[in-house]
């Protein structure tokens, strides 16, 4: 299985002004990490026209390797999903899903959210909230 923390190290250091300071992005893909599509439904690599006629819509340069699995992930992510949910719903191994998610994130098609406490142990305030939530069940 691939690692949970996937860090992209640029081949060379890009000038700060060009990258807005984001010289290195580190995305944490735990099983519970939430991701969401940045596209709106209908975006993305165009499929065949619905009725089989008519010209194809003008096609922007596809920055996405249009692997069907990647498209399936983006479609699922029109609703907020966790990494584990994506793997389960698409019946794909977790490691494969993580690699595809990282690629999609690099392409700006999905957004990876922080868990709220990074990868560390939850602090007392968070544990108290979980306790309160469980009490209310």
């Amino acid at each position, binding site marked *: 299985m691939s690692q949970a923390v996937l860090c992209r190290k640029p081949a060379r250091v890009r000038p700060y002004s060009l990258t807005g300071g984001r010289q290195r992005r580190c995305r944490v893909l735990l099983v519970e990490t939430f991701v969401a599509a940045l596209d709106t439904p209908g975006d993305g690599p165009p499929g065949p026209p619905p009725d089989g006629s008519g010209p194809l819509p003008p096609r922007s340069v596809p920055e996405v390797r249009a692997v069907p699995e990647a498209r399936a992930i983006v479609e699922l992510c029109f609703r907020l999903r966790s990494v584990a949910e994506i793997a389960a719903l698409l019946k794909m191994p977790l490691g494969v899903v993580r690699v595809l998610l990282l690629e999609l994130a690099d392409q700006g098609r999905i957004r990876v959210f922080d868990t709220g406490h990074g990868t*560390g142990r939850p602090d007392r305030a968070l544990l108290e909230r979980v306790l309160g939530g469980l009490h209310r069940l």
Partner: protein
Amino acid sequence: MRGEDPTRGGPPAALDVPRGWQTDRSRAPHATKIVVAGGFGVGKTTFVGSVSEITPLRTEAVMTVAGEAVDDRTATPDKTTTTVAMDFGRITLDTDLVLYLFGTPGQKRFWFMWDDLVRGAIGAVVMADTRRLADCFPALDYFDSAGLPYIVAVNQFEGTARHDPEEVREALALPHQVPLVQMDARQRVAVVDTLLILVGRALDTTPG
């Protein structure tokens, strides 16, 4: 595996309706998780299903077997790779707080997965069946060495002898500060109580 198991206490699949937080893609709730570990058949999936708001889902991780004996039902013999299945469920605790429960097999050869799984976790519920107590030794060893808060939940199957909790503790060499509960994984109330005890234990071990 969608909700056919009549022993499950969770809501039926028809109730898998989206929650409010799932439709807002601009923000995400706080994501927390608890690991449910133990031997095969001890009741992990049942435990998860009893409290989950979704029908438990299954994820798989592929692992390579280095000439090791394969001893469980999910593994394919005579192959160099095998698949480890994890069942998980979800509980929305607040509009901005979600708890995941991951049920995972406890054998030592799955530890490669656990390093990954326990990262950021609240803690673990180690499920035990008194007829096969040794099945949970590896999980106890792992959480001890990982420093993850855990409790032991004895899943009381009917027809099995009720053991004195102190005897079970002793058999597991459980430190006195680690809670041990006797429960029924099919009962939602018992599962919620077990989770409350685990989170309480996590609080006890978290500096203020």
